[in-house]
Each structure stands twice: as C-alpha cells, then as structure tokens.
C-alpha cells in the first residue's frame, strides 16, 4: 500500500480487462480519495463502464489489483464487497415494494434497524410517501431516486453510478444533478459517476478522469481539464475548441512564447505549451474569442460566414484567410453584433490559449460528443 493513503481511498493498480478480441481497459492506475465525487467521462466503448463493473465485482479483471484503504478486494465477489451500484436501468426488483427494495441490502447483513434506516433514506430522497408502492408505479425520476436510495442506505465505501441520469429528460436530469451533488455532500460517501455527458461530469464532479479507448487521457478538476486540455481528444470532447496549426518560435520569456500561424505571430502562456515540441495545435475556446480588436497581439482577421443567434449568445463562424473557420461565441451582453459577410477581427488573451502536440489528430473526440440539448 502506498504511503500517505487515506483510510477509505479507492485505488486501482494496473487494472486491466481484456476480452477475446480487444482490450477494454489498458493497465489503469487511479486513486480516488475517500469522500470525493469522481467522474469517469468518455464516449461509449471507452472502457469506463467496464472499469466500474470491475470495481463493483461484476466483472473479473484480467490483471491488476483493486484496494479500498488497506484492503485488497480484487479476489472478493460482488456480494462480499461494501460497494454498491446505481444501475443505468435502475434494476429495481419489480416484485418488491419500494421499501423492500431499499431494505434489500440491509436485510442481507441482518441489520435490525433496516426499516428505520430505509425510511430515513427514503425521506432523504423525498420518497417517503411512496414506500409501499411497487417500482413500476413510479415515474422514471422517482425510480432513479429509489435506485439511489437502495444503494446509499448501505453506506458503501464506494457508491458507483453507471450513467444514472441517462434515461431522464433534460429538465429532470438537471434537477437530479443538483440533487445528487447535494446528497453526496450530505452523506459524505465516495461517489464514482460514469457518464458520457461532459456537462454532467463537469457540473457534478470534484475531479474527472477522461477516458478514451481504454486509457485515461487526462485527470483533473473540471476547470483545469477545460482550460488546459493536454490532448486534442480532451479539447474536443470537453466542449468545443478551435485548433489552429502553429510553429513555436524560438526564444520567448518565462511566461510568454510566440507561435507562428500563417505569417502572424501569436502569444501563448509558456505553461500552456507542451515541452520540447515545435509543431503544435494552438487551441482557443469559442467563448474566449472576441469580435473586434482587444489591443493585444493575438488577433486574426477573417470574414463572417455564419451567424446563429440562440438568445443568451450568438455563434459566428469566421473564415480565416487560409480557409479554416473559427467558431466564436459572443455573449448577448449588448456588444455590437457582426453581420454575414463582414470582415472582422478575432482576438483573445494570451493566457486563454493552449498548445497541443501537433502529431495528434485535430478532430479526435469531436465526433463522439453526444448532443443532449
């Protein structure tokens, strides 16, 4: 066991899952601190659900170890682990009442206070009044909360959530996101949330591991992942990114380096630049771009090719002289709007840009973003 490990931390050591024809999870090392809200984010087939099922004990790893605190649980069966799952399909027992569903786990360990504890947890998820109903009599949102209560009531070391909000409509999903976050803070258990919805992951999680093709692409808190993606996959999968091919100019200061984009020198923070790479993708988020001159050196001119107004913001496509279109999102804050065909300046602050190794595919991850609008 690693030194300095908290008592209930979950750690995965070189955890691997291979099937006959492919490897779902490449050796994965990950430590999830006790009491945190952790998200495993990635497109379908990236290995996030397989990882979750290995933690639950529902899938046998091909290699590696799983520890909770000092205990190695790799060899234990699902029913022996103090880990509970909220399934995507809820998997509520249709022949039992809501109350019996929630008491199921407690009864398996012979808890004498099962009824009281179950009643309490049903109050927490605001379902006290439907305790005697059958799950099928409830709406999707209520079923989701029953599934959550059924897992929570056991006070597991780790609570696993497998796309738990996937079946809900947008409004309910937003509501449940807040609810889940509130409950997690209230009960203080470790939550591991598997999702393909980047917005959901960013809203709820303290830290996110972005997974792609069985590997973790990047691990960090939501803001860092968004502001400083370390791969084109993360840049595209978490929100939109404008990626422009650039060459790093030699020299620069401790803080600022210039890169050359089609005869224009642009500034980027040195800390946002990968070390020892000359060919880069210079990335800027659409909402970081401003129409008009900002006075700084980071400025490109182009022609407005598309305008779409969505109420809170306007999205422009601005064609650069070399043919690439940059996406600009302008908040509806009263600033002047550009019109179709107008020649405009696009500018941004140096510290809003990030640079990525140009050997990567600029479109990686972009086509995988599922629209939940």
């Amino acid at each position, binding site marked *: 066991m690693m030194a300095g490990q908290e008592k209930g931390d979950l750690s995965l050591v070189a955890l691997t899952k291979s099937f006959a024809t492919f490897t779902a999870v490449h050796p994965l090392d990950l430590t999830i601190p006790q009491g945190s809200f952790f998200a495993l984010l990635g497109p379908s087939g990236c290995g996030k659900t397989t990882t979750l099922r290995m933690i*639950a004990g529902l899938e046998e790893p091909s290699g590696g170890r799983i520890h909770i605190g000092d205990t190695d649980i790799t060899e234990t069966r699902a*029913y022996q682990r103090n880990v*509970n*799952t909220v399934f995507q399909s809820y998997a509520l027992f249709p022949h039992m009442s809501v109350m019996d569903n929630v008491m199921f*786990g407690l009864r398996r360990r012979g808890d004498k206070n099962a009824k009281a504890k179950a009643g309490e947890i049903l109050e927490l998820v605001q379902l006290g009044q439907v305790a005697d109903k059958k799950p*099928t*009599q409830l709406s999707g949102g209520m079923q989701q909360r029953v599934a959550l209560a059924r897992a929570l009531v*056991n006070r597991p070391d780790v609570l696993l959530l497998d796309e738990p909000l996937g079946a809900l409509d947008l409004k309910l999903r937003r509501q449940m996101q807040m609810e889940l976050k509130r409950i997690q803070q209230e009960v203080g258990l470790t939550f591991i949330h598997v999702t393909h919805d980047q917005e959901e992951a960013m809203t709820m999680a303290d830290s996110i591991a972005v997974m792609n093709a069985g590997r973790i692409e990047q691990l960090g808190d939501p803001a860092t992942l968004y502001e400083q993606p370390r791969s084109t996959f993360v840049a595209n999968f978490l929100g939109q990114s404008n990626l422009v091919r650039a060459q790093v100019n030699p020299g620069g200061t401790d803080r600022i380096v210039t890169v050359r984009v089609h005869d224009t020198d642009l500034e980027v923070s040195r800390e946002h630049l990968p070390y020892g790479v000359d060919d880069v993708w210079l990335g800027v988020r659409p909402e970081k771009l401003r129409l008009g001159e900002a006075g700084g050196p980071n400025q490109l001119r182009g022609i407005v090719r598309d305008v779409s107004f969505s109420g809170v913001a306007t999205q422009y496509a601005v064609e650069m002289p070399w043919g690439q279109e940059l996406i600009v999102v302008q908040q509806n804050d009263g600033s002047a709007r550009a019109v179709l065909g107008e020649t405009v300046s696009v500018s941004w602050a140096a510290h809003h840009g990030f640079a990525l190794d140009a050997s990567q595919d600029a479109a990686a991850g972009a086509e995988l973003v599922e629209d939940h609008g």
Partner: protein
Amino acid sequence: MTWVKKHLIAFAALAVLVYMLVPNVIVAAFSFNDPKGKYNYNFNEFSTEAWTNPCGAQGICESLGLSLQVGVIASLAATVLGTMIAFALGRYRFRGRSATNLLIFMPMATPEVVMGSSLLTLFLMLGVPSGRTAILIAHIMFCVSFVVVAVKARVATLDPKLEEAAADLGANPRQTFLRVTLPLAAPGIAAGGLLAFSLSFDDYIITNFNASPSSITFPMYVWGASARGVPVQVYVIGTVMFLLALVVVMVGQLISSRRNRQVV
C-alpha cells in the same frame, strides 16, 4: 337491423364461446341424469344419485386416485427438471445448447402412439415392469418439454441486471436465486407445472402402452367403460375437474389483475 350489425362481433364471440363450452355444459347436465339402461345418452330423469355416490361405479375412484397421484408426482418432477433445463438454456452459452434446444422439442413433435410403443419396447428391454412406475417415468419424460418451453419464455424476459443488482447489494448466489430469480420466474414455473399436470392427468395413449391390469388410470377407465356404457359418475368427475380448472384460472386472473391494478 343496424343494432345487430353494430354488435356483430359480440354475436360472433358469443357463438364461439357457446361452441367451446357446450360440451362442458352437456357433461354437467348429464351428471344429473338417471339413465334408462346402461348408456347415458338420453336425458331421462333428474337425479343427484351420482353426485352423492361418486365412487359408486366399480373401480372409478381407484383409477381417479392413481391418475391424481401420477399427475402430481409427474408434474412436480417435470417442473423441477424442466425449470433447471430452462434456466440452463436461457442463461448460459455452452457447447450443445442449440442441439439441446432442438431435442427438447422432440417429445412434443413425436406422435404419442410412436412414443408409447417405443417406450414399451425400451421398458421391456430394460426389464422395467409395466405399471405405475413405467407410467410415471413416461409422464415425467413428456411433461419436461412443456415445462421447459413455459419457463424458458419467462426466463427470457428476466433482466439479468436484477441478479447483478442483488449480488451488488450483498445477496449470495443462493439468496439471489431464492429472493429475486425464483419469485420473478414463478408465473412461468406455475404455468409449466399446471400444464404438466393436466397433460399427465389427461394422457391415454402413452399410458395405455405402459399400464398393467392393476394400474388403470382415469382416462383408461373411461375408455374401457365406454364400451359397456359410461357410468354417470364419470360425468360427475368430469364436471368437478372442469370446475376446479375454472377456479384455478379465476384465481390466477384475480392475482394478476390485482398486480396490474397496483401497477397502473
């Protein structure tokens, strides 16, 4: 006339119902007959004689007892075996699975006369004496297929995630089976069991091949009696069987409708 046209479907449905139920009504009616002569073919005079003395005809209650005994044992054994086979076929992928699936259908597809005679050959070869044991073995054999079909249909609709959820919540494999799998599969198992009982109780052909003079089942008794004139008691037992079946079906309907009412 338009009223008739409007309710044409209702009339058609009624006609079909009458068509289906007339035989049962005749059986019930003739169970109250006091026949003139030995044939119970013309309604002669109302009498409750047969109802008050259902065992009055010689050998009838012994044969009924044997049929009930064979039916209960055969259907229980077939239900246990068939349920296990259905779970194996529905849940697991293994070598020979599709072959097993096919072979399970064979007893249902084989003509009973063929099955009965070949069973007799087999029993003679193996030295199994004709009679109750031979009948039981034969009944369990052909009932298993029907149970497998009924239970497999139910198993197919069971969400394997429910068993995962049970394990996830700390239920060991035994508890998972008893508390989740079995209750959910119960309607299919019950249907299979009832079907097996009625098939066993009803069987004449296969039974006849493997029976001995001391093991006359109820269908064999009725068949044998028909040459000499069927006693009224047979009609009484027929009516009781029909009423029992009706009660079972109605109770089943009641349970499922109560379940559904909770659902809506």
